[in-house]
């Protein structure tokens, strides 16, 4: 049996940096970090003997170690302006290599009852507010990359919506990587807490300043208390040379509703984990996903939904478009715990292969320990419909136009459900542009 990838360079880097991390010296935080570090040292980074990483070799990441990015790198304001979503009115927090940049952020007219801040600043100024939440949604056995993120935990976004507050505009978290040069590792940790009865939308976007070899290891913890409604969109659009390991860890309370869309547009290797715990009765979750992978990209989505209490609803729909020699992995695990009666759970994964050399591994995994539940799942891998291509060509569209129209159509329904509209239009355009650039469509 092979052993896991050695993490000693990251362990050493953490030991070097530990004393300078925000609020170092606070006992609870030091303990959090050192426990995570011990775990990272013990388990290393996952390799393919780990069932959850069976189809995703991380050799391209481990081949050359990344150095944790330093605070204070420069990101030109024009870049941030150019990266904004047209017509999207939002409260915006910008992060440079994982560090909050107040100067680039835009938080004017924030209504009462809403906290938007950098995690580092909060840890320094008001750690007691963070303590109850930090790490609380991660679950019992986070993998090596998550442990790495926890061991360095220092900056990222804090979004807290007080009970009953309905936020008027979405919160946009823009993460710009690759600012501090090549070979950098950014490690943002985000905390989103939607208190009882509140409503908000959080948009998390990951972009690259330059086409550097970089690694983003980004973890978001989301707490949705009873009767709250939280929407979370994660858009991963870093450069084709960047690596991205991201996790979304969510706890959903009684009658609360969590919706998320995970969109992956680019990247050399992208792994997104989602762990959704439906903690209490009538909790609901809707997880949508769209991943595009071309060239030699590798995109892995790992979702894990746990129904803990009766009358929970989960809906999951991930779609992938692959061309060239790209690979995608979808692993959808659904667990219905004893007592979670009347659970209603659906999962779908659909993949469109535009090339013979592209490959998908789709693996549903249902574990049901309650007897009165409704769970369905389905996975498909297919090609464009030749009959439809001919139909469009017979109307005058050429091969490329026909294939592009059908590919867009395949991706459309995931995006169609997205609110705000400005984000949806932006992503439709991005998907379009991506298709435009792809040779595979032209076969």
């Amino acid at each position, binding site marked *: 049996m092979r052993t896991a990838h050695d993490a000693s360079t990251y362990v050493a880097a953490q030991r070097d940096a530990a004393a300078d991390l925000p609020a170092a010296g606070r006992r609870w935080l030091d303990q959090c970090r050192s426990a995570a570090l011990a775990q990272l040292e013990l388990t290393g980074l996952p390799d393919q003997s780990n069932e959850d990483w069976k189809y995703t070799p991380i050799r391209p990441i481990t081949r050359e170690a990344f150095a944790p990015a330093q605070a204070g790198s420069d990101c030109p304001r024009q870049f941030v302006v150019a990266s904004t979503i047209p017509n999207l009115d939002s409260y915006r927090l910008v992060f440079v290599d994982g560090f909050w940049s107040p100067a680039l952020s835009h938080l004017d007219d924030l209504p009462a009852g809403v906290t938007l801040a950098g995690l580092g600043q909060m840890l320094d100024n008001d750690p007691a507010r963070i303590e109850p939440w930090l790490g609380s949604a991660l679950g019992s056995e986070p993998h090596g990359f998550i442990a790495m993120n926890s061991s360095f935990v220092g900056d990222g976004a804090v979004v807290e919506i007080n009970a009953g507050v309905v936020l008027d505009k979405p919160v946009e978290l823009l993460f710009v990587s690759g600012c501090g040069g090549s070979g950098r590792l950014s490690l943002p940790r985000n905390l989103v807490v939607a208190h009882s009865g509140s409503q908000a939308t959080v948009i998390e976007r990951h972009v690259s300043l330059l086409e550097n070899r970089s690694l983003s290891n980004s973890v978001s913890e989301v707490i949705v208390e009873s009767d709250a409604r939280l929407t979370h969109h994660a858009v991963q659009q870093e450069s084709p040379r960047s690596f991205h390991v991201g996790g979304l860890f969510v706890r959903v309370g009684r009658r609360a509703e969590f919706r998320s869309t995970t969109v992956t547009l680019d990247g050399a290797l992208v792994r997104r984990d989602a762990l959704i715990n439906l903690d209490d009765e009538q909790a609901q979750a809707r997880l949508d996903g769209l991943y595009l992978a071309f060239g030699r990209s590798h995109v892995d989505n790992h979702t894990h939904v746990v129904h803990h209490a009766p009358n929970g609803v989960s809906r999951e729909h991930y779609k992938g478009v692959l061309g060239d020699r790209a690979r995608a992995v979808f692993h959808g695990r659904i667990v219905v715990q004893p007592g979670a009666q009347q659970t209603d759970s659906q999962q779908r994964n659909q993949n469109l292969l535009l090339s013979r050399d592209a490959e998908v591994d789709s693996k549903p995994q249902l574990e049901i320990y309650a007897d009165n539940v409704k769970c369905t799942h389905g996975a498909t891998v297919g090609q464009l419909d030749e009959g439809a291509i001919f139909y469009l*060509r*017979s109307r005058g569209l050429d091969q490329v136009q026909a294939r592009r*129209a059908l590919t867009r159509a395949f991706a459309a329904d995931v995006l169609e459900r997205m609110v705000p509209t400005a984000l949806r239009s932006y992503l439709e355009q991005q998907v379009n542009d991506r298709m435009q650039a792809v040779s595979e469509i032209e076969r």
Partner: protein
Amino acid sequence: MLSIKGLHAKVDDRPILRGLDLEVGPGEVHAIMGPNGSGKSTLANVIAGRDGYEVTGGSVRFLGRSLLSLTPEERAREGVFLAFQYPVEIPGVSNVAMLKEAVNALRKHRGEPGLDAMDFLKLARERLKLVEMKEEFLYRSVNEGFSGGEKKRNEIFQLAMLEPRLAILDETDSGLDIDALKVVAGGVNAMRGSARSIVLVTHYQRLLEHIVPDWVHVLADGRIVRSGDKELAVELEQQGYGWVNSGADQAVGVG
């Protein structure tokens, strides 16, 4: 306009068309009738350029040029239109999006500027009226969830939008109720003109009462075995196809 000589074509290595001849002049309407499986749709698909239909002999010329070396979209841009016997459903692609791209591809081919959204919509609304379709059909996905009759109407709507020089209608009348048949026939008649030829594939004489053909042909076993005027269709309706092959002395109409 369209000149087919000695056409042989195979599907899946099976010879389907076996020496077919057909001449369609400008402005003419030709009806093609014939038993199931005789090769009518195969002929339509060969003219439109569908993959998998292998031409093993003969020629198909359109406006003096060979069609056979052109891609399906080149044929469409030259002015060939096929109304499908079984229109394909295309979820996620709206009628309006498809037609806008198609109309502008054809215009570009002719060296005309593309229509902007306003002008396109104006044209679309006008042509929808021709087949009495509601505007909502513009925004629905192509044929998705359309009833059988609505699909056929949508084919004629597309014909009206694309204004081809040669339209082949493969059993557009099948599955239409009596009123719809009249509407669709009205739409086709409105598109008749001296520069536009129409080939109607049909099993029923009733369509030909509404769209009166200049010629009627019988396609059997991959060849045109009988040609005549509209009276031939009446005869076929009464007697079926059995007599067609039984002897040349019963031939009617012109050849």
